């Protein structure tokens, strides 16, 4: 038995998953079989053990295709299995303990329940993440997600964006040939078996389609024949048509457990263009295929992932890519799903009609596309990740907004810091006022009276932060080590530079750029707190530090005057020069501090991301009152945005504040803005000018929610009337009524511009 229990939610899960199609006994059988093969593989090379295990899952877990599907491939997953991310299944050889327990609860047979207990026991010491947690979790480091701690760590391989171009250029037989030309070490030989397994998957899909065709009506028969022909072709050959290319890409992504898809316009645009030119398909056909893809991605329900990125610099065939982008914009506007997270990279070269379509899509309330500014992000990526321009041009945001280089880098966010808790500990001799636990390592944090100047306090805060930056790098590196000890991530490795040439799996030295990211939270609450302290205590001398801390410890009950002064002190998001400068100083401290530590540890890059996936709300619930006037238990500021209610000078002021952080130090930051439909329509030209100016001024990213006055309030009161009201949480969109109350309230608190 492991001493550390990691049972509990492991990621934000808003969208309700579609249950596995198999019967409980079939599911149990697969999980037992997986466990048996895993156990027996103990002494095998990890790559061989991995492929043996995956063969238990694939093709078995593929489910029935839906009659609306225009490409084949729907995959279930179980509480035990193999994966890379927690959004679907888990990491490496995984067991999702709370889901396994839930599975046990639905079984009615006692003998089966005992079997589950046996599985649970086995995986407690074999689940890759559990092994990692065993090593890393301690009094300062919490499990992801356990918001009691100022710092959380996890093992996962999030945000893999594979080089599907290699797949489409070579085809499966071509990939096998390439692999066969290498030294046949355990990794290479398991990789060959991996591709062969994918061919088995395709064969099984063919059988399913043939079966479906028997009962289909005429028009469906035609569709199924198209799918069947494509499957037959891609089983060995590289794709010739758009449909074949789409089909091959999709099945590979499913098998790899990839839930972010990357620059599909660059991947598929030429196929599309050629097919249309030579009359194989018309635009409407392509539109239908993409609509089907959209639905199939939606049905995977990964909540914060599902990135499809179009537009931007570095695409080979711009004409084809833009054609593809245009169709995606149409599909996105028509479908209005929360996934895929449809993302548009724009630059000074983006054609006007694409920008126009994007605006209309956003104005319609789709919350997509999310906009990324290449003119800022490409140079920023060059610096941040230390890569050449041609490489930086292939940056892609995944999940809630972290950047990776498609096909070349790993950037999984395996550590998270709550900067506000760190400030509170700095104010309270190292103790977190929320639970009176001391969590500052061996750092001496003095009594408040010792801080004679603002810099005394600020420097001590930075010292404690540094301690957490150190922990971050260690925990991140260790996650790679543990994952590498146990798995090769074969499907991922095959399509990532430079694993095949180096004949090594991803984390074994195969990956070209070993990066990583650290999610930071409460950044703005912290800098606003510091600014309020600086002015009220050290400049105006209106209060002492003790008085302010005492008021916060009391959650401002009986100290309403102090709270009012703290809350009314200048806040980030209002274009206030000094306040924003302090926010920027803190940002750079974190960003540069983390980046340098990453470099020193031998990583390609290690960057902070200022994104959000409702963690600001979850963590806020367990974060004490702060010196910016925020009360205990209230959400912290979302991503890189002001605290709800703090931005009082309109969108230009807020966007000006947001532009002040130099993008080159971070690995992704998220800015949300909310407009009414009236403004988006009647003042369209002005809003467009607003966005354009923001991007010209150095804005790196923007996501827009369009919602009317009172709608969110009404939806909170009458959820039944709003089954498909989509809102932008921060790094992802969600159906508003599916969010829990605290998160809804946080969204309500954000400024709405009309």
């Amino acid at each position, binding site marked *: 038995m492991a001493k550390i229990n990691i049972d509990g939610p492991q990621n934000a899960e808003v969208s309700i998953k579609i249950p596995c199609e198999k019967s409980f006994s079939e599911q149990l059988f697969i999980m037992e079989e997986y466990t048996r093969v895993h156990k027996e593989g103990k002494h095998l090379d990890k790559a061989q053990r991995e492929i043996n295990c995956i063969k238990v899952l694939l093709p078995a877990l593929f489910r029935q295709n839906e009659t609306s599907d225009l490409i084949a491939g729907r995959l279930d997953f179980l509480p035990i299995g193999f994966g890379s991310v927690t959004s679907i299944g888990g990491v490496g050889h995984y067991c999702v303990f709370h889901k396994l327990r839930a599975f046990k609860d639905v079984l009615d047979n006692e003998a089966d329940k005992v079997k589950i207990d046996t599985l649970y026991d086995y995986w407690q010491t074999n689940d890759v993440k559990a092994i990692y947690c065993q090593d890393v979790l301690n009094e300062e480091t919490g499990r992801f997600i356990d918001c009691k701690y100022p710092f959380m760590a996890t093992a996962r391989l999030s945000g893999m964006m594979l080089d599907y171009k290699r797949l489409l250029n070579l085809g499966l037989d071509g990939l096998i040939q390439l692999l066969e030309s290498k030294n046949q070490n355990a990794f290479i030989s398991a990789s060959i078996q991996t591709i062969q397994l994918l061919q088995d998957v395709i064969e099984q899909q063919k059988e399913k389609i043939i079966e479906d065709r028997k009962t289909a009506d005429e028009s469906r028969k035609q569709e199924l024949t198209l799918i069947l022909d494509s499957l037959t072709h891609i089983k060995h050959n590289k794709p010739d048509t758009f449909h074949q290319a789409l089909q091959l890409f999709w099945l590979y992504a499913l098998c790899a457990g990839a839930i972010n898809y990357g620059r599909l316009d660059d991947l598929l645009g030429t196929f599309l263009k050629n097919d249309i030119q030579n009359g194989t398909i018309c635009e409407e056909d392509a539109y239908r295929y993409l609509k089907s893809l959209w639905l199939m991605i939606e049905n995977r329900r990964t909540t914060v992932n599902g990135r499809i990125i179009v537009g931007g610099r570095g695409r080979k065939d711009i004409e084809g890519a833009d054609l593809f982008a245009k169709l995606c914009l149409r599909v996105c506007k028509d479908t209005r799903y929360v996934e895929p997270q449809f993302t548009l990279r724009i630059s000074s070269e983006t054609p006007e009609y694409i920008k126009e379509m994007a605006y209309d899509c956003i104005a319609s309330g789709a919350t997509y596309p999310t906009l990324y500014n290449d003119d800022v992000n490409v140079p920023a990526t060059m610096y941040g990740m230390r890569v050449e321009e041609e490489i930086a041009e292939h940056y892609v945001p995944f999940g809630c907004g972290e950047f990776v280089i498609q096909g070349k880098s790993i950037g999984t966010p395996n550590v998270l810091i709550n900067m506000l808790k760190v400030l509170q500990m700095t104010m309270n001799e190292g103790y977190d006022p929320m639970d009176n636990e001391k969590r500052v390592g061996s750092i001496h944090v003095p009594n408040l009276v010792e801080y004679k100047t603002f810099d005394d306090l600020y420097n001590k805060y930075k010292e404690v932060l540094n301690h957490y930056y150190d922990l971050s790098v260690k925990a991140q590196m260790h996650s790679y080590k543990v994952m590498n000890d146990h798995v090769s991530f074969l499907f991922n490795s095959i399509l990532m530079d430079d694993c095949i040439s180096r004949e090594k799996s991803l984390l074994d030295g195969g990956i070209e750029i070993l990066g990583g990211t650290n999610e930071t939270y409460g950044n703005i609450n912290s800098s606003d707190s510091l600014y309020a302290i600086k002015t009220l205590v050290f400049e105006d001398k209106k209060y002492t530090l003790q008085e302010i801390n005492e008021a916060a410890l009391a959650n401002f009950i009986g100290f309403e005057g102090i709270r009012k002064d703290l809350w009314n002190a200048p806040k980030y998001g209002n274009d206030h020069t000094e306040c924003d400068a302090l926010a920027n100083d803190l940002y750079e401290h974190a960003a540069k501090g983390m980046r340098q530590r990453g470099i020193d540890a031998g990583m390609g890059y290690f960057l902070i991301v200022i994104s959000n996936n409702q963690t600001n709300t979850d963590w806020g619930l367990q974060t004490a009152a702060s010196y910016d006037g925020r009360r205990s238990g209230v959400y912290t500021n979302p991503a890189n945005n002001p605290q709800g209610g703090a931005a009082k000078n309109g969108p230009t*002021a807020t966007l000006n504040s947001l532009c002040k952080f130099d993008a080159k130090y971070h690995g992704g930051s998220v800015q949300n803005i909310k407009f009414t439909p009236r403004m988006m329509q009647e003042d369209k030209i002005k809003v467009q000018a607003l966005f354009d*100016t923001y991007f010209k001024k150095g804005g790196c990213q923007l996501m827009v929610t369009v919602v009317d006055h009172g709608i969110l309030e009404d939806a909170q009161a009458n959820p039944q009337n709003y089954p498909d009201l989509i809102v932008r949480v921060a790094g992802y969109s969600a159906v508003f009524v599916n969010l829990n109350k605290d998160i809804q309230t946080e969204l309500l608190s954000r400024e709405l511009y009309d």
Partner: protein
Amino acid sequence: MINIFNIERFATHDGPGIRSVVFLKGCPLHCPWCANPESWDVEPQVLYSKEKCTNCQLCATVCPTNAISFVNDRFTYDKEKCNACKACEHACTQEAIEITGKKVNIQEVMDVVLKDVDYYNQSNGGITISGGEPFNQSEELFTLVQACKKEELHVAIETTGYTSLENIKKVEPFTDLFLFDIKHTNMEKLKKITGAHLEIILENLIYLTQKDANKVIIRVPVIPLFNFCEERIKEIIDLAYSIKVKEVHLLAYHTLGENKWDKIMKQYYSNEPMVRKEDLVPYIAYGESLGITIKIGG
């Protein structure tokens, strides 16, 4: 120093493009439907939100001039005594008191306005000076428009036109656009309800249109029981036509300013319903027939 009560950034209704609107305090008119009644008095004053007040009476205790007192537990405020020290605002924990209006120097105004220059440039926007009646502080206004022109900003002034021709002549060369209010064409009615003299307003209007009619947009607040009838509105459009003004804005009366009347503790205009924008649509065609663009709203 100039008395202002607000600077609104990203304003989209008062002139072309993205603008910042600087609201100057003080107005010689007293239109009973005014949406900014706190702008009438040039001096700063207390805004009081009854619904937030818990009647703790702390404000009266801290007020050094006894401007605030409680008569039968009712908040009473004597503007004449108030010196705008803000002690009451700071003391009130309920945020029930806000002092509106402050004296600032022109540079402070410019510092805020210049923060959005990039947005003006992108959208052909600029600064709009509104009120109150901006010409009520004509010297300060003159300094402000000069400062704006030095920064090459597009300058619009929203005015009732109720000021001396002298003032208009001075400011005109530094102004790109006048959003000129015409509320009524009947001298007596205008005088009775708002206190303004129509002949002065018209003299100024004609001066400006003779200088350059393209620099003038006529704005008409469309108010029930005052000017909301076909004859009146058409008269104003005809007036525009006769002096070659190419654009008229019909601003539908709304009651959104109502709670501000509560806050200055005065009775609001009437219980008339808001004017619906749809009711103003027919005038678009009428304007068109005269070659005038009619816009509903700003």
